[in-house]
């Protein structure tokens, strides 16, 4: 019998000892739980399409140093926190000292301030589904704690730039924890980007804990380079009448995985998840989402679009679990996919588990190709074939891009996507 591959013990040794004592202790505890962590294989249900892209070499276990250049990315109109390889860079960050809002690096927390954190970190996630969040828990060297007091409103979006800078092989473990007090409001933009050419692993965890009536918008741009394998998890806990909105835009890579888990725990909570993924060449991207309707009278609306060109591979797995007491739940999941070549692959799977009887749950998934009639219409007006393809491909996701509520991000995403498609259709 072939033995199951295990996470190399090289990955069990964290760097960075400047964290407050309670967090160092937490890390140690999480590391001990990793000792027997099997790596996913194609027999691992939630990794079956993606395990073959995961390539962890021992030299990638080394913590990437918190140095390197930043800022190849968004022109940031709002507040900004810059992380390099998972460690906050205060000189590059600019954010306000506002009433009722704390934005703190884990490393800046006093021991007593950090005492409450171990119970919170990871509390929004179902770790059995996001095995790699444990790795982050064992390895994070810093992190960002964002705390909004009740009724606090962040007047501008907060941008968090996560730069992976890899001049030599290694890994980074960015971590964010957001505590949104009752009726507070926040828009958070996470941009994942990279520099350097060496092979790197980024394992991220972002958590949102929304109290009653809190309103949080999360935008996530995944645009690291071809040397970076990205495994990210986002956990969301929502209490009564809170509202969460997520916009994920992901560009393919050698391995891209994002798990988004939302638990609707209070009545009247609403969540809206939008996602756009584009892959080309031999790239990969895998989105796994999971929405738990735990309380009654909650709404969830999910719209994901994948576009795969060349020999690339996109995966979407959308789980909706409506618990027994979650009567009057409203869940709507829609996944549309566009294959731009015969060599590309898209796997899409809805997973519905419904244990309440009075619910509305709709889901739909399609896989299609560019419509030749539409292409002909455009080229018959003198528009070049390549440009016609780009226009139609953009059209497939335009509705979602237009919904990104921060103009600077929307424009960046649009420009990057259209560059991406120009490249995709270069040969055409």
């Amino acid at each position: 019998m072939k033995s199951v591959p295990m996470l190399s013990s090289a990955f069990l040794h964290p760097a960075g000892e400047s964290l407050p004592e309670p967090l160092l202790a937490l890390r140690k505890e999480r590391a001990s739980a990793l000792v027997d962590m099997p790596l996913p294989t194609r027999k691992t249900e939630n990794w079956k399409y993606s395990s073959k892209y995961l390539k962890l070499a021992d030299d990638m276990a080394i913590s990437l140093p918190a140095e390197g250049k930043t800022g190849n990315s968004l022109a940031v109109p709002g507040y900004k926190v810059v992380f390099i390889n998972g460690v906050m860079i205060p000189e590059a960050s600019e954010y306000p000292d506002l009433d009722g809002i704390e934005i703190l690096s884990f490393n800046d927390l006093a021991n007593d301030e950090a005492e409450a954190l171990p119970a919170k970190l990871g509390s929004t996630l179902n770790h059995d589904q996001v095995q790699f969040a444990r790795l982050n828990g064992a390895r994070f060297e810093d992190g960002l704690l964002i705390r909004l007091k009740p009724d606090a409103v962040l007047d501008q979006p907060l941008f968090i730039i996560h730069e992976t800078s890899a001049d030599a092989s290694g890994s980074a473990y960015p971590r964010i924890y957001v505590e949104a007090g009752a009726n507070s409001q926040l828009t958070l933009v996470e941009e994942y980007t990279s520099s350097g050419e060496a092979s790197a692993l980024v394992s991220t965890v972002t958590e949102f804990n929304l109290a009653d009536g809190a309103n949080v918008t999360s935008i996530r741009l995944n645009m690291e380079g071809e040397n970076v394998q990205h495994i990210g998890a986002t956990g969301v806990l929502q209490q009564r009448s809170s509202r969460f909105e997520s916009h994920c835009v992901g560009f393919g890579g050698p391995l891209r995985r994002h798990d988004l888990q939302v638990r609707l725990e209070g009545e009247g909570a609403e969540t809206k998840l939008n996602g756009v993924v584009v892959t080309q060449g031999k790239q990969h991207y895998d989105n796994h989402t999971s929405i738990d309707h735990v309380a009654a009278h909650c709404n969830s609306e999910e719209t994901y679009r994948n576009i795969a060109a060349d020999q690339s591979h996109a995966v979407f797995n959308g789980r909706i679990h409506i618990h027994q007491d979650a009567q009057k739940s409203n869940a709507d999941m829609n996944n549309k996919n566009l294959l731009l070549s015969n060599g590309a692959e898209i796997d899409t799977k809805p997973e519905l588990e419904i244990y309440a009887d009075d619910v509305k749950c709709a889901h739909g998934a399609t896989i299609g190709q560019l419509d030749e009639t539409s292409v002909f219409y455009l080229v018959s007006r003198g528009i070049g074939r390549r440009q016609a393809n780009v226009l139609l491909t953009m059209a497939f996701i335009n509705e979602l891009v237009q919904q990104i509520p921060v103009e600077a991000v929307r424009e960046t995403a649009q420009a990057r996507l259209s560059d991406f498609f120009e490249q995709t259709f270069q040969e055409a």
Partner: protein
Amino acid sequence: MLSIKNLHASVEGKEILKGINLEIKAGEVHAIMGPNGSGKSTLSQVLAGNDAFEVTEGEVTLNGDNLLDLETEERAREGIFLAFQYPVEIPGVSNLQFLRTAVNAMRKHKGQDEMNAAEFMKLAKEVSKQVDLDPAFLKRGVNEGFSGGEKKRNEIMQALLLQPKLAILDETDSGLDIDALKVVSDGVNALRSEDRAILMVTHYQRLLNHIVPDYVHVLAGGKIIKSGGRELALELEEKGYGWLGIKDDDTSN
């Protein structure tokens, strides 16, 4: 300007056009009439370069150049314009973006500067007025949710913006009420000029009351079986296609 010689074309192995001959000179307006299924749209699509149709024999030249060698977009840039019988809806691409991209592709081909968004907006608003389309339609997806008549007016709007050498109008009159027919024909008449030719394809002759053709051809069974002047259309109207021994099984419209 356009010369079609012995054109044969088939779709999915079935021959539809069986030897079309047609000469169109600059400044002329030709009408091709024929019952449903006679091959009118096939001819239009073949001229525009739809490669769902295979040309098996014959030649087509535009001002002496072999048209059949050109890609669809090249034909458009050389001045061929087809107003579709069934314009497609393209949600996600705004009409404005589509029109500007098309106009700029043409300008670029002619060595002219591209128009910026503001310049184009001004032009597009004027032309949309000309075809009686609310400028709000510019913001919508291409033909998205347009009524049949609005789609046809959008086609004519494109012709007015692109100023083709040869405009082929495939059943541009179908589905139009009297007012819309007037708007559309005013648009087409505005296109008439010395150096432009118009090929109208239609089942009925009512459009020809508004846009008076110089020549009328009757297409049946993939061939032009009769040609004449304006009076031929009137005769057809009066006597029906049966007069020429053609079966017209069309009951629509």
